[in-house]
C-alpha cells in the first residue's frame, strides 16, 4: 500500500485534473449545507453523504472533507496533530491541500484562517475570523452505553442524558475522581450532548464562548457537528466533583509556561524526562518572546 504522502505526491503530477481542493463543487455545497445545519442546531450530529478521499479513514478524512469544502483561494491553512505542525499526519494533510488548492499554509496560529486539528485546540486564543476543523473518530458520545443508532438518536431527541452522568459516577466509584480526561462530554447551548473529539479536557474551557467557529467531521460515520461562535459549552460534572482541567507541578522546560498543556518526553535512555508544551507553535513563540526580552534588557 502506498503511503499517504506518496499518494499526495502522485496527485502532484495530475493536479490539473482535480477541482480546487480536490472535491467537486457539488459535494462541497452538500457538505457546506450540512455545516450550516450544524451551526443552526449547535452540537447536533448532521449526517452527510461523504465522498471517498484518496486516503484511509483514521487519517482524518472527516476533517479533510470539511476543510476542502470551506477553503477558498485566499485562505491560509494550518494543520496540527497532537498540537504539533511537524508530525507525519499534519505534514501530509498540509501537503495535500497545498497540492490540490495551491493555497498558503502556515504554522503560526494567528496567521491561519482555517486550522485543521486532531487532539488539541491551540493555546493562543482564536478570533472570530478563524475556523477550527476537528478530525473526529467517534462522533456519538452515547455509543459506549447504547450501540443502537436508532436508540441514541431517540436519546438525543428526548434529551435523555442520565446514562452519560452514570459514566462519570462510575469514574468516581473506580478512581475517586472523574478520571475521564480526553473526549470529555459536554452539552452545547444547554441542549445537545456532544463528544468534543479526543481533545484533552484541558481544552474544554476553550470551547465555551469561543470566538472562532468550530466544526467537527467524522469521516467513517459521516457526521458533522458544530459549535457556532459565542456558544455556551458546559462540561458535565457533579456539584461535589466539579469539572477541572489537567495540571502540572512544573512549567514547560522549554518556554517556562505554567498554563499550557504539557507532554512528557523522554530525553535520554536513562529514563530522564521533561515536560514541554504540546502546542509547538505557542512554545516557540514564548521562547522567542523571552529571547527578545533578554535582548532588550541587554541592549
Amino acid at each position, binding site marked *: 500500500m502506498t503511503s499517504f504522502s506518496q499518494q499526495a505526491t502522485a496527485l502532484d503530477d495530475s493536479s490539473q485534473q482535480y477541482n480546487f481542493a480536490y472535491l467537486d463543487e457539488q459535494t462541497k455545497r452538500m457538505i457546506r449545507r450540512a455545516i450550516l445545519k450544524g451551526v443552526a442546531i449547535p452540537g447536533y450530529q448532521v449526517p452527510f453523504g461523504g465522498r471517498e478521499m484518496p486516503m484511509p479513514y483514521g487519517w482524518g478524512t472527516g476533517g479533510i472533507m470539511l476543510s476542502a469544502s470551506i477553503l477558498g483561494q485566499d485562505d491560509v491553512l494550518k494543520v496540527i496533530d497532537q498540537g504539533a505542525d511537524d508530525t507525519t499526519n499534519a505534514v501530509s494533510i498540509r501537503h495535500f491541500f497545498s497540492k490540490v488548492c495551491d493555497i498558503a499554509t502556515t504554522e503560526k496560529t494567528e496567521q491561519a484562517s482555517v486550522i485543521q486539528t486532531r487532539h488539541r485546540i491551540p493555546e493562543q486564543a482564536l478570533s472570530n475570523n478563524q475556523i477550527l476543523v476537528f478530525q473526529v473518530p467517534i462522533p456519538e458520545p452515547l455509543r459506549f*452505553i447504547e450501540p443502537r443508532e436508532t436508540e441514541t438518536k431517540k436519546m438525543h*431527541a*428526548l434529551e*435523555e*442524558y*442520565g*446514562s452519560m*452522568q*452514570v459514566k462519570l*459516577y*462510575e469514574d*468516581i*466509584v473506580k478512581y475517586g475522581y472523574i478520571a475521564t480526561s480526553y473526549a470529555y462530554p459536554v452539552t452545547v447551548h444547554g441542549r445537545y450532548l456532544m463528544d468534543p473529539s479526543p481533545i484533552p479536557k484541558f481544552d474544554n474551557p476553550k470551547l465555551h464562548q469561543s470566538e472562532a467557529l468550530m466544526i467537527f467531521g467524522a469521516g467513517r460515520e459521516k457526521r458533522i457537528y458544530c459549535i457556532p461562535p459565542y456558544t455556551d459549552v458546559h462540561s458535565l*460534572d*457533579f*456539584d*461535589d*466533583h466539579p469539572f477541572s482541567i489537567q495540571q502540572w507541578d512544573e512549567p514547560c522546560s522549554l518556554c517556562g509556561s505554567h498554563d499550557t498543556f504539557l507532554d512528557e518526553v523522554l530525553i535520554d535512555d536513562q529514563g530522564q524526562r521533561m515536560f514541554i508544551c504540546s502546542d509547538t507553535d505557542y512554545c516557540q513563540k514564548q521562547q522567542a518572546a523571552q529571547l527578545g526580552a533578554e535582548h532588550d534588557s541587554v541592549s
Partner: protein
Amino acid sequence: MTQLAKQLEEPRANAANQAEPALLQAQNLSMLYAPGKGFEDVNLSLYPGEVLAIVGESGSGKTTLLKTLSGRLAPQTGSISFQSDSNTAELYKISEAERRSLIRQHFGIVHQHPLDGLRPRVSAGGNIGERLMENGWRNYAEIRLQALTWLKAVEIDQSRIDDMPLTFSGGMQQRLQIARNLVTHPRLVFMDEPTGGLDVSVQARLLDLIRNLVTELQLAVVIVTHDLAVARLLAHRIMVMKQGQVVESGLTDRVLDDPSHPYTQLLVSSVLQQ
C-alpha cells in the same frame, strides 16, 4: 422497614383508597398481534395503593397488556389515562417525549429477567442512581446515600454498592432492579413475573420483601403472574385472562375462593391439586 417509610416518603392514605380518583384508567383497550394473541377490550381502574394481579396461563396476553398499561406499547384501540398530582395525561395522546418523561417520573417497571432492567456493566450504586441522575440529581454524595439506603431497603449488603450486577445472584439482581425502580418514589409500579425464574426459597423471600415495600410505601402495583399463590399473597384484586380476553375480575379472595368462570375454576383447582 417502618423506618424506611418514614425516611423515604410521606405515608399516603390507606391502601386502595377509592375515595381518591383512580391513578390509572383503561378503557376498551385492545392490542392483538393475531386473533387471540394479545388482549381485547380491557377496562380497568387502579386506585392509589392498590395491587392488581393479572393472572392467566402462558400466552394469554399478560405481558402484552402490561406493556401497553405501562406506556411501552401503543394499543390498537382504547385509551389509558394517568392521574398525576392534579393533571390527567392520556398515555398515548401525549408526545413520546412527554410519555417517556412521565414514565421516568411516575412509573416503575420491573422486568421478569432482571438483566433486562439493569445495566450489567454499571455498579449496583450506579444502577440505583441512574434514575436520580436522569431526573437532574447532580450531587455524588447524595446519590450515593440514596443508593445505600435502597440497598438496605431491598436487603442487599451495603458493602456491595460498587459491585457489578453480574456478580449478584438471581434473587439479588431482582432486588436490585426493584431498588433501581423505587428510588424515585414512583406512584405506580408494573411487575412482570418478578419471581419468575427463581428458586422457591428465594421466591418466598422476594415476595415477602415486595409485600412489605408495597405496604410501607403505599405503592399501586400491577403485577403479572401465572402463579395464583403470588396473586393471593400480594393482590387486592385479580384479573383473569384467557386467550386475550378478561374472563373474570374481582377482589382476590372472592375470585380465588369462589371463582365464577369455568376457566378460573380450572386454574384454582389445578393449583389446589399441586
